[in-house]
């Protein structure tokens, strides 16, 4: 357990190290996740409209 505590402590640099990795995860991961959700909703919307038009045509 002390090993794990030592790992999170990062030799006293915990704040700098974990905030660096955390901000990268939040910013880049956030864009990746948001892009994926946008794609899922765009596909749903565009395909639904395309099918409606098909029926009306």
């Amino acid at each position, binding site marked *: 357990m002390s090993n794990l505590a030592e790992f999170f402590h990062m030799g006293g*640099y915990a704040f700098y190290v974990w905030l660096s990795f955390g901000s*990268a995860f939040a910013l*880049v991961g956030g864009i*990746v996740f948001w892009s994926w959700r*946008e794609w899922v909703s765009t596909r749903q919307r565009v395909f639904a409209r*395309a*099918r409606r038009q*098909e029926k009306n045509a």
Partner: protein
Amino acid sequence: MFKWIHRFGSPPVVYRLCSLFSPWLGVAAAACLLAGLWLGLVVAPPDYEQGESYRIIYVHVPAAWMSMFVYVSMAVSSAVFLIWRLKVADVAAAAMAPIGAAFTAVALLTGSLWGKPMWGTWWVWDARLTSELLLLFLYLGYMALRGALADPAGASTSAGARSAAILAVVGIVNIPIIHYSVEWWNTLHQPSTITRMDKPAMHISMLRPLLLMAAGAQLLFFYNLTVRLRSGLLQREARARWVRDLADKHAT
């Protein structure tokens, strides 16, 4: 050449290629990043001068490399759009901007978080830092310009696409400035350790995770591109025949 460009620039072909590569890119990116994090945070030894703080390199350097790589890709794509009027190239350039801006912001933030314990300051107006900040403004300017010239429904207009593309192409002068800033000016930022002509000044146990994180970031960018490009193409081509065919196939 021209025929080739138009064949591979055709929206349904690009859409299909994106669908084909997307899952593989996503899995490969995740694998590289997880391996890089494990080796970088757990396996690699602490630095003899900087202790554990040097581990910030594993996000800082890949993010900084990507901030420039994505910008060059965006500028080349914009140039192709301006020269050959290729719609797909414009959709691609627009798709690259957000993640490029995210990488740039991460490079700046982690640089600041590394600078505080090592240099004793969050920020200095040195050439490397200032030119990287300018890169962030170029990305944000590109997106703001597109947004400002969009139509009321939020779709991009040809005026918006063209002016943003010109901004992206002109802004590329900043890339060599960022790259050579550490050599041209006497900066606080150190010169590069990895891409030197002789062998890199880093032990393999520390270098391997860095290369894995860099490969992971690169793959993640391409994965994100396949996702955003498909959104962009569907929006732009909503009324096209191929989208209707795809909608039918998707329903069954």
